[in-house]
Structures are given as structure tokens and as C-alpha cells.
């Protein structure tokens, strides 16, 4: 049971809410209250646009506990347009379509359930290819 952690992280998970440094304008994700660029305190909330591109990726065939039902799935390092790199699952995309530099956008999806089918549903950000071209 990780309910307190899921609850604490909900804002950053649901909507990519991070921080902006009031001293040097650096955008920070995940939020850590200290600017990684200038080392000063940074607690101002900042909502990321959710736009970014795939920086690198790997496809998971042997999933960790709680994610088995989704295999195979692709996890990517996504470079947000505001700067930070985040690790997230890609969704609505076949593995063979993924490439480095692919533009993606944030969506909020179901990440997993805590424990079994009686457990809490955990929601959070994933990324999908931008655009509405038919496949």
C-alpha cells in the first residue's frame, strides 16, 4: 500500500505540475524545491505545456510487478519543450512507430493499480505521438 505517496504526487502526476526558479527562470520537473541550475530555492508552481520529443526509448517485455498486464510497452525519456527530461510510458503507439525526435504530448492515463483489482487506481502522465493523422 503506497497510498500516501500516490496522494502526495497527484498534482505532478496528473498534470505535469513542476516548478519554475524565481532566480534564473529554469523550469523544474519533478519538483524538488531547489533549482538544479543555480542552487537557489525554487518553490513557484509551474504547469508544463506537455509538449516534447522522444530523447531515447526502450520497450519493456518483462514488466515490473503491477505493470504485467500492459506488456509490451515503450518507456521513453521525453525532453519537454521547457527543458527538463522526464521518464514516462508512451501510449497509443506501436513500438515500431517510435523514433528518436518524435514529437509527443502529455496525456493523463491509468498507470497501474495498487496491488490487485481491489486496490487504488493510480493515474498519471504518459506521452503519445502528436497529431491526428490516420494510421
Amino acid at each position, binding site marked *: 500500500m503506497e497510498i500516501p505517496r500516490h496522494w502526495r504526487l*497527484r*498534482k505532478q502526476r*496528473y*498534470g505535469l505540475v513542476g516548478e519554475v526558479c524565481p532566480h534564473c527562470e529554469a523550469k523544474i520537473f519533478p519538483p524538488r524545491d531547489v533549482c538544479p541550475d543555480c542552487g537557489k530555492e525554487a518553490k513557484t508552481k509551474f*504547469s508544463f505545456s506537455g509538449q516534447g520529443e522522444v530523447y531515447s526509448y526502450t520497450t519493456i517485455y518483462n514488466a515490473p510487478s503491477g505493470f*504485467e*498486464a*500492459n506488456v509490451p510497452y515503450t518507456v521513453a525519456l521525453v525532453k519537454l519543450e521547457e527543458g527538463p527530461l522526464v521518464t514516462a*510510458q508512451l*501510449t*497509443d503507439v*506501436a513500438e515500431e512507430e517510435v523514433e528518436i525526435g518524435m514529437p509527443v504530448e502529455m*496525456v*493523463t*492515463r*491509468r*498507470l497501474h493499480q495498487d496491488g490487485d483489482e481491489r486496490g487504488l*487506481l493510480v*493515474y498519471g502522465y*504518459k506521452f503519445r505521438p502528436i497529431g*491526428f*493523422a*490516420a*494510421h
Partner: protein
Amino acid sequence: MTPKNETLLIPSRPVGIIGYGAYVPRYRLPATEVARIWKGGKGGLPIKEKSVPGLDEDVVTMSIEAARNALARAQIDASDLRAVWVGSESHPYAVKPTSTIVAEAIGAVPSTQAADWEFACKAGTEALVAAMGLVGSEMAEYALAIGMDTAQGRPGDALEYTAGAGGAAYIIGPAEESLAVIEAAYSYVTDTPDFWRRAGAKYPEHGSRFTGEPAYFEHITQAAKALMEASGTTPADYQWAVFHQPNTKFPTRVAKMLGFSKEQIEPGLLVPLIGNTYAGAAIIGLTATLDIARPGDRILVTSFGSGAGSDAFSIRVTDAISERSGRAPKTQEYIARRTEIDYATYVRMRGKITLK
């Protein structure tokens, strides 16, 4: 329009739609796939294909995306919403609101109402009428009403061809800020046992032939006729009409019964391509219609929910539509964004395979 009949629902402050947003998952199951497995490929098909949610989608995630689209069109801050209401028959939890998760994700918390609405396929329009009341009474400036479903049919049942996924979100606000004024609503409700699902049951039961005449056709025609009579309008006063669409045949026939043409219902008739989206069905027909509507157009919308009831709305599009409709993806863009799947993939995506 002046109220000639006290049964019409008209708020004391005029209200309208400030923003709207649709959502349809990208996966499609052709009806031929269901027929291939269960009918040896024989028999008629009620639709071409239906939308299927991905493994990581449910009414919460789909409502969040539709709500974000509505906010993008409305260009208001989510913290100005005083209600986040989600109508569905497939809420992911039996106990724990869908609406609190949606409200948190879009940034509407904490100064807001949040509740889940249930009334089979009219849960979304039920929330819409309530939002009209909240804004129309001046208790709130803005309220968000959503109808969204990921409906399930028992494998092999007639409903499996059509039970689709999708829906829409509407931000209701003062009429003068709206892209479409809701001139009036009318609700027609009776106790009619045409379709139900008992608590704890996974798949619904339906009264077969009973679903047609005494349920769908009776409630929709009564609601639409009463709204038009009381407000002094006829089908000729509406450019467009949208009816609840459990299959292609029913809305086509009910439109004809009421005196609406094929052309009037064409933009909002989405069921052949996405299936029956239950609480989302009538109102995603409306998003698709708003996408193509022009200032001054009038739209008649009538939902139907089993059990049973219909909500009818008379809606007049304003000049603001031209500027706002392009601010978020159009309904037809979601429909065009399709990945076809086979029955096996569908069975997996809908959780019909258990891993233990």
C-alpha cells in the same frame, strides 16, 4: 423564445455553452469481427465499427482529455469552475468519485462541487441540465458537465457490436459569453424497465423488443415534441438535430418520425463509426455538430437513458463559435485517428482475459 409552458426548463439567467470538448479512443473494432467470432460471419451489422479504449484508458482519463479540450475552447481558468460533474455508467470505482480525480487533474480543486451522475445513457445530459441550473441561478459563473462511457456488452450479445467508448465535456456559463445559447430544456421521465445492470453484475440485461417502442421511441419523441411545442418551434427552425444513437437505425427512424431530414442529423450521427457511447452518445453528436455549425444555427438535441427518460435541448449558435471551435481537436479528427484491431486484441483490451 418565451416560456409558454411551465414544464420547460429555462433558467432565470440565460446560459449557454462556453466551451466544449470531445474524446474518442483511437482503437476500432469492426462489427465484422464480432460477426466472424459469434455468427460465422453471417447476419446484418448494426454499425460499421466501434471505438475501443486502450488498456490504460477509462472514464476518468477520457473525461480529463475532453475537459481539457473544453477548457481550451472556453479559455477560462479551471479554478473558476464551481462544478465538475461526470455522467457515466462505467465509472471505474463503485465507491469513489470519478469527478474528484478529473477536477484535480484539470486544476479545478478545491473550491468546486464534484459528483458522478447516473442515468444510463442520459447521465451526461442530466449533468448538463443541473449545470444550467447552477449557472442560471447565479450560484456559479461556470460549471463543467461531462458524459463519458466505456460500455461493455456480454461477449456474443447484440450489444457487443455497438458498445463503444467516448463522450464529451461542456462548460456552461452566462449566455453572453457563450458560443451557443441553451434556449430551453425539457425532460421526460417514466419508470420503464428496458435495460438494466444489477449492482455487481459485469454485463447489462435488456428487454429485447421492449427497448424500442415503449422506451427509446416513446421518450425521445415525447421529449422533442414537448420542447418544440412549448417553445413554438418546428423541425424547420433547426438546422441540425442530434438524437441518442444506440445503433444507426433508431436515430434515423426517430428523426423521420419527428419530421427531421437525413441532412439535419448527418453531422451528429456518429454511431456507425464509433458505436454507442452511452452517456456520451447524444452529446458527442452535439460536439461534432458544433464543429461544423455557423452563427445563428439552431440545434435540437435529445438524449435517451434507459430506465427511462429523455432530455431535449434547444440550442442557438452564436458568433463566438467561429473563433472558438478551432482551439481544440474536432470530433471528426478523433474519429479519423483510428487503429483497427481484431477480436483477440479487443478481448485483451477490454479485460476479458484474466491473468489469474
